[in-house]
């Protein structure tokens, strides 16, 4: 690459002016050189499939009739919008994302606030609390299936033995409990990530602010409310973005446990898209669901960009 040149000797003003001109010219090319490789990789690998999938959403495309796709216009979308099940699933997806947000941010704040204190063996505590995040979902599903086993699982065993609940439910098969249970399991895995980001935000707050508040006689809750929370606003915005988009796009966290069942009690848009594509083989419809998910995610991302990045940009 031409830009990797070694130190230039000190030069005359003319030469310096020439060099500046060159740099300006290079400046125009520079963004391409720097951003190009990454952009190319993204465009090559993600670009075509995304456009292909968006295109498919306007087709009658069934895997059961390969090579016989026909243009469908907006049929896939109107069919979805006219289907009460779709709206049920949409509602559940939003509930799922909302619940994930509340649980993961709430618990994340507790974890981050705890880790931000001078704890005994803080390094070990921090490592331990992060561990669920690095466990593959396949393994998370295995662990929780055993914990929640209705007969030999320790949770139901404990409930029975202590007499708290004589006939505890089959957690993963009971329409009343299965969604909250999956929210909690998925929070078990993902809250550490939330906590890490919130913790990083808390560490940006100068300790002087806490000390000043303490001198003013603020108690722990007031300090948390008035110093910590305002200080981590940007972290909060970031975890809101990642948690919502992570929850809406979560597939393994549901499919590996319930495949959307029982009676669709855990069906969200991603599992619906998968079912439509690979069980019903209706690729056009599945692509339309994906495009709808994509639009929802874009909306979340755009809001985030304008709220957080926009503000940041103004400051500079």
């Amino acid at each position, binding site marked *: 690459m031409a830009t990797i040149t070694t130190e230039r000797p000190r030069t005359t003003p003319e030469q310096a002016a020439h060099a500046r001109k060159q740099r300006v010219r290079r400046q125009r090319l520079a963004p391409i050189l720097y951003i190009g490789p990454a952009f190319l990789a993204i465009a090559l690998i993600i670009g075509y499939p995304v456009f292909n999938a968006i295109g498919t959403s306007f087709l009658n495309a069934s*895997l*059961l009739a390969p090579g016989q796709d026909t243009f469908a216009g907006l049929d896939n979308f109107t069919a979805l919008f006219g289907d009460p099940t779709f709206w049920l699933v949409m509602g559940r997806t939003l509930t799922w994302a909302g619940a994930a947000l509340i649980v993961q941010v709430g618990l994340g704040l507790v974890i981050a606030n705890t880790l931000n204190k001078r704890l005994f063996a803080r390094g070990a505590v921090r490592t331990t609390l992060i561990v669920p995040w690095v466990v593959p979902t396949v393994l998370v599903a295995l662990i929780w299936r055993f914990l929640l086993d209705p*007969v030999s699982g320790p949770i139901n065993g404990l409930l029975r033995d202590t007499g708290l609940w004589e006939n505890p439910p089959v957690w993963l*098969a*009971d329409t009343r409990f299965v969604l909250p249970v999956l929210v909690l399991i998925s929070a078990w895995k993902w809250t550490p990530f939330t906590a890490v980001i919130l913790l990083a935000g808390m*560490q940006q707050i100068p300790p002087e602010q806490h000390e000043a508040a303490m001198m003013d006689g603020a108690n722990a809750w007031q300090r948390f409310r008035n110093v910590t929370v305002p200080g981590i606003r940007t972290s909060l915005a970031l975890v809101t973005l990642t948690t919502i988009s992570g929850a809406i796009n979560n597939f393994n966290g549901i499919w590996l446990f319930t495949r959307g069942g029982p009676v669709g009690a855990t069906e969200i848009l991603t599992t619906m898209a998968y*079912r439509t594509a690979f*069980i*019903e083989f209706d690729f056009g419809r599945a692509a339309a669901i994906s495009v709808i998910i994509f639009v929802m995610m874009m909306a979340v991302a755009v809001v985030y960009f304008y709220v957080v990045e926009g503000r940041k940009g103004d400051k500079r």
Partner: protein
Amino acid sequence: MSTPSPRLSRRQLLALGGGVASGLTLAACGTGSGGGGSDPTGGGASGSGTLELWANAGVAGDSDSGLQRAVRAWGEANGVTVNVQGIPTQDLVPKLTTTSSGGSGPDVAIVDVSSVPQLAAAQVLADVTDKADAVTGDFGDELLASSSYDGGLFGLPYTTNNVGLFYNRELLDGAGIAVPTTWQELRDAAIELTGGDQYGYMMGAQGYGAFLFWPWLWQNGGTILSEDLTTATFADDLGQEAFAFYSGLVLEDKVMPPEFVGANASWDQYVAPFVQGRCAMMATGPWGTAPIEEGNPDLDWAVAPLPAGTGSASILGGTTISVGHNSTQSDLAWELVSWLTATEQMPYIQDTGNIPGRRDVIDSEWTAEDPVRQTFVEQMEVARARPALPIWGDIEWGVMANMWDAVIQGQQAPADALAAAAEETNQKLSS
């Protein structure tokens, strides 16, 4: 803790870089080994003496399973490397369709008979009607029908099975109950055997419950679809009667272990209460044998034909072995398929405890050696195939599975649920 801004020393960075470089070398090695997998056209065969065979993980087994030993023997004799890939059942159909619609896929596939029509329609499996002409006489008509779609043959029967009544002899004898042979006897026995932490009969949830309903429907003289496969008939009077009996075992008689509502992901979950000795009877296929023998060798159990209604019936299952639609070596692949299904190779299947699909094996003395096997072979005469519909998976594991769960979760009355499911099925059939 103000962040201590950890900076990597140059040495650390170099070490990191070195590690990465070796990682890349390893990655390159990883791609090279593994036989024909490095074929640039990907997935399929390379034409250089390599075949890809995909089967569900259970059939593929580990390196000394019957299938893998058989395939190795053929490969050595013919100078062909056959890579056997075991894929979990629930991933097999999506993976086959994804790779096929991308223009590749395996040379040989062993799939569940219930997915043959959809895999045939999706051009995953090749039409082998002409190739198989010489050998079709070796297999029973019902088995060939379950490997067919739309007038074409899309594979040869590899293994076959059906569903029988497993019962705990100790529990039945202890209560002085004879093995039930009719619906009423089954019901009475199940009620009698239920008490405390002991239960009379096991049911499945979701698709397992739907799958196990069909024999009762047939036994009552009902049918799933009209003969031209355009209308659902499973909710007519005969169907409703059968379903009332079937769901009544759950809703009225309550003879199931409570955890049956969670038996929705694997047969393991379904078989568990029986293996534990807590459940006296269950309807399942030969695959129920291994978990009992391995999990509880002391259990005293046996298999009887399913109790009969106005007639006898069981449900036909099993696997089909076929050539991949996109295989570039379909002739070689067919050679392997026909070799694997020839008489001489049957011991490889027999060793696994499965029943091969060949007539000569089914009619041989081997079936009489084991009473469990004999029961299943005898039942083959009344075992029926499910409709050869590409959207069958969606009907059984979508519509019917949801319907059944709604019933056992108490969300819908059985008669209404079944009628609604028939209507939904009709919609799917007409679209």
